[in-house]
């Protein structure tokens, strides 16, 4: 075999090996190296993962408990003041119970930071059971109305006075806190908007 021919064969072999290394072997070796680095990083991250399923289960149980309390164990603080509606319903209730000499006054709203409190004073005269019925009605409303102060007095307080009259009526004065949360409406709107947006 002539020398140039042998040289060409040798050059061809080198070219084939070089092409094989460059096109086949080296990219795969680099790929394996890259995957090793990636696997190490991911394994590190995965090893730091907490017991997610158990933690989620615990949080879901907590959420159910606190949601149950919030939805069934407490009275709502509405976002609307609606004092007019409350006064209208209260007046109707006082009418039904036959309470007389009654007056309802409202005052300046107090800002309690996370809620607002509108004071309302109610005075009335009637039977003791009627007053108790008004108290029960106020405390069973679907909105939070707190009786801040209550005074029930028999008009004839001394023993002599009571003996001289058969009047069993009592005078009652209630100072109420009517709570409402104007900021809640805004929060609900923001929450609704965030749910609508993807």
């Amino acid at each position, binding site marked *: *075999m002539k020398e140039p021919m042998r040289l060409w*064969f040798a050059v061809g*072999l080198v070219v*084939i*090996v070089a092409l*094989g290394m460059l096109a*086949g*072997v080296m990219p*795969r*070796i680099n*790929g*394996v190296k890259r*995957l090793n680095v*990636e*696997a190490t990083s*991911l394994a590190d*991250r*995965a090893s730091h*993962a907490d017991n*997610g399923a158990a*933690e*989620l289960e615990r*949080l*879901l149980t*907590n*959420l159910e408990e*606190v*949601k149950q*309390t*919030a939805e069934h*164990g*407490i*009275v709502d*603080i509405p976002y609307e003041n609606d004092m007019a509606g409350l006064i209208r319903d209260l007046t109707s209730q006082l009418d039904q119970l036959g309470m007389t000499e009654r007056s309802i006054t409202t005052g300046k709203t*107090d800002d*309690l930071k*996370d*809620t607002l409190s509108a*004071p309302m004073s109610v005075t009335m005269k009637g039977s003791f059971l009627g007053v*108790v019925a008004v*108290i*029960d009605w106020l*405390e069973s409303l679907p909105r*939070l109305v*707190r*009786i*801040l*102060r*209550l*005074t*029930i*007095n*028999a008009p004839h*307080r*001394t*023993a*002599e006075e*009571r*003996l001289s009259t058969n009047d069993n009526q009592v005078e009652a004065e209630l100072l109420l*806190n009517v709570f409402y949360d104007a900021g809640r409406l805004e929060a609900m709107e923001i929450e609704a908007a965030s749910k609508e947006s993807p």
Partner: protein
Amino acid sequence: MIPLIDLTPESCRRRLGRRRQIQMWISVYTVAITILVTVTAVISMTQQRRQRNVDYLMSQVQLDADQQRQAVKLHHDIDHYSTVVARYQRLAWPVTIGEVISLIGDETPTNITLTSISVTPRARSGQTQRRRQPAAGIDYAVMYVEIAGIAPGDMDVASFVSGLQDRPLFSSIVVDYVRKAKMGEYSAREFGLTCEINLKTRYVRVDEEETP
């Protein structure tokens, strides 16, 4: 040893020699290509195995990230509802005024007439009563209950006080006065007492049938 003598003509010998050389180069090429293909295949398999491992780890990390996102949302919801409950517990009395009046009524003996009941919250137990309006924003600690009435005798007042003392709701029961009163030709006793209800306690209604 008998030496081998090649009788092949020179031209034929050269041709055979060249063929051998070519066959040798073909073998070298074949071996080189086989080695390249084998090495490439082995590395490819390793790469695929690594890729599967990475995919699995990636899915685990992704799952953890999803769970963390869900946990953050759950924490947010729990905080929201806890805030609502905490606000309610801060603003609402732990016991309704209706229940307080009802309990006082239950403990009032039939021969006692109550002439006055007042319920006023206070920031501290034993605080001197002030006549100014209570405000909504104060963190009240106790509910101050004042009761006045008329009883036939001291024993009736004592029975009333004893009944109130048996109720865990009422504490610090103080009889402010018991004084003689005339009811026509009969004598009676006018009395006034005060007691407190702790507003920092949660109360649970226990039915009498359930109590041992």
